[in-house]
């Protein structure tokens, strides 16, 4: 034992205070377990500090500025000036409010908070090193541990986030002035959300994506209106190219991008480059071997439907446990792990995991696509409603997109839904509940929806699947 070491014990040790870890800790506290939460950096993790929350704050603000500046048609004439420093400091205020809220909620639920970096020191022990020289470390014995260390942005060769013009999402969310021009490498949801933010703030944005499409993983029908709108915002796309190197050029940089077959090279000049090509698990710094915890070849920790790792009393939740790498998935996993540890009959038995992309328009999905349902052996029926036919959508000026509902033809059970359009991230909630409840198309169609709302589109899509929509022609 090194000097300054204190040995303590806890029922449940949670490593990492992101949405997976802090939810696990709070839930464990509510269940009267003695719980210790170790965080090395900031309560709320990636999500609250550098992910979901700051990105959504900047999305709202850039959207407001852009909409107001383009509303002549509505009789509004404005030419908003943007002070990115001010915008970012507003965003930081939002983050501070939420992270201090998380800290308070942890304390109120009896969670012991500990600052430091945790690594395993055995099957039932972690060592927590406190920041700064000579701050020492301490050893903590635990009955159960929950690993919730999250993920970090992947780096690609030749693009180091230490180099000033190369940004990861976290750095892009903390700029203090709007770049004149920006190259975004990667057209996944993070790349597309941030490309949209900067385009709306007036940046000249170019997106370079290795694959053939934006928002890979989502139904191409959903990606289409997003890509179209992005183009209307002036975003240029280069699909089938991977960023290979960059160099200083004039006042900015020049990025070389190479086609898949290596034959073709593009040169794109810009002030900065944002790399958003995916996220890797934070599992390599934990000394998992000391506890015997296994990872897969990519470093994710495999778990069962209770969140358990290969080591019976150790759980892994959130991004470090792999897909779906979403905050709400992590929170659910954290909640279940805590309940399982407390002896409750909990399990990850959800029928559908919703996901949203906060682009313009937004995307919201839950459950199966038509194709997925068919692959699973369902005879499907689908209904669609375009926002173009929604009174509420017209009154907001946002009419791109549609609601699509996929159901089992026989009994009409809702299997999945895909929405692209205004408030898609909110509208998907009703369909998530429908799926969990085992609701049918008829149940949704018979439920009165308030007029005029976007949620009527959900009802109309269900009616369309049943062949009797009112506000659209039935196919």
């Amino acid at each position: 034992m090194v000097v300054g070491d204190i040995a303590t014990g806890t029922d449940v040790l949670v490593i990492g205070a992101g949405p997976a870890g802090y939810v696990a800790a709070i839930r464990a506290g509510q269940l009267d377990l003695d719980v210790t939460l170790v965080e090395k950096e900031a309560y709320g993790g990636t999500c609250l500090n550098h992910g979901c929350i700051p990105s959504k704050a900047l999305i709202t603000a850039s959207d407001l500025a852009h909409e107001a500046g383009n509303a002549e048609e509505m009789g509004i004439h404005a030419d908003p000036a943007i002070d990115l420093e001010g915008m970012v400091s507003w965003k930081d205020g939002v983050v501070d409010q939420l992270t201090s809220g998380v800290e308070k909620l942890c304390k109120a639920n009896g969670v012991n908070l500990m600052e430091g970096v945790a690594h395993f020191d055995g099957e039932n022990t972690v060592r927590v090193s406190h920041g700064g020289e000579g701050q020492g470390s301490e050893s903590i014995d635990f009955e159960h541990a929950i690993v919730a260390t999250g993920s970090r942005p992947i780096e690609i060769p030749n693009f180091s986030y230490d180099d000033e013009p190369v940004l990861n999402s976290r750095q892009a969310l903390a700029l203090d002035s709007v770049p004149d021009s920006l190259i975004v490498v990667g057209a996944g949801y993070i790349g597309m959300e941030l490309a949209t933010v900067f385009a709306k703030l007036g940046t000249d944005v170019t997106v370079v994506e290795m694959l053939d499409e934006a928002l890979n993983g989502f139904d191409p029908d959903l990606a289409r209106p997003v890509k179209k709108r992005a183009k209307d915002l002036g975003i240029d796309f280069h699909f089938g190219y991977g960023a290979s190197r960059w160099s200083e050029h004039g006042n900015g940089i020049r990025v070389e991008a190479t086609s898949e077959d290596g034959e073709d090279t593009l040169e794109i000049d810009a002030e900065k480059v944002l790399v958003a090509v995916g996220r890797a698990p934070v599992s390599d710094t934990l000394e998992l071997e000391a506890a015997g915890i296994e990872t897969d070849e990519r470093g994710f920790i495999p778990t069962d439907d209770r969140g358990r790792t290969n080591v019976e009393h150790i759980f892994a939740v959130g991004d470090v446990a792999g897909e779906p790498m979403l905050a709400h998935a992590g929170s659910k996993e954290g909640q279940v792990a805590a309940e399982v540890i407390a002896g409750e009959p909990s399990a990850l038995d959800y029928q559908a995991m919703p996901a949203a992309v906060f682009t313009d328009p937004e995307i919201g999905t839950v459950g199966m696509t038509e194709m997925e349902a068919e692959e699973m052996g369902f005879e499907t029926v689908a209904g669609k409603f375009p926002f173009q036919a929604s009174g509420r959508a017209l009154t907001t000026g946002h009419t791109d997109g549609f609601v699509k509902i996929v159901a089992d033809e026989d009994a009409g059970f809702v299997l999945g839904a895909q929405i692209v359009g205004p408030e898609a991230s909110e509208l998907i909630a009703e369909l998530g509940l429908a799926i969990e409840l085992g609701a049918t198309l008829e149940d949704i169609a018979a439920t009165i929806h308030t007029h005029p709302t976007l949620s009527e589109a959900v009802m109309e899509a269900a009616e369309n699947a049943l062949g009797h929509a009112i506000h659209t022609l039935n196919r």
Partner: protein
Amino acid sequence: PESVDVPEGRIFAPPRVRKLAREQGVDISTVQGSGPGGRITEGDVEAAASAGGSSDGGAEAAETAPAEPT
């Protein structure tokens, strides 16, 4: 009520019924639903639970049910 054959991987029962199944040690994927269109109800799970152990189906359900947490 009629019930339908559903492919594996989807359970047509609300969360509260799925939880009841776990509490009772019933493998819900083996329960025949009596609700609308074959939706599984509390009653179906309770019936399966009380049949459990005595019939083959019940024994199988108990066996394939997720392990009780320690």
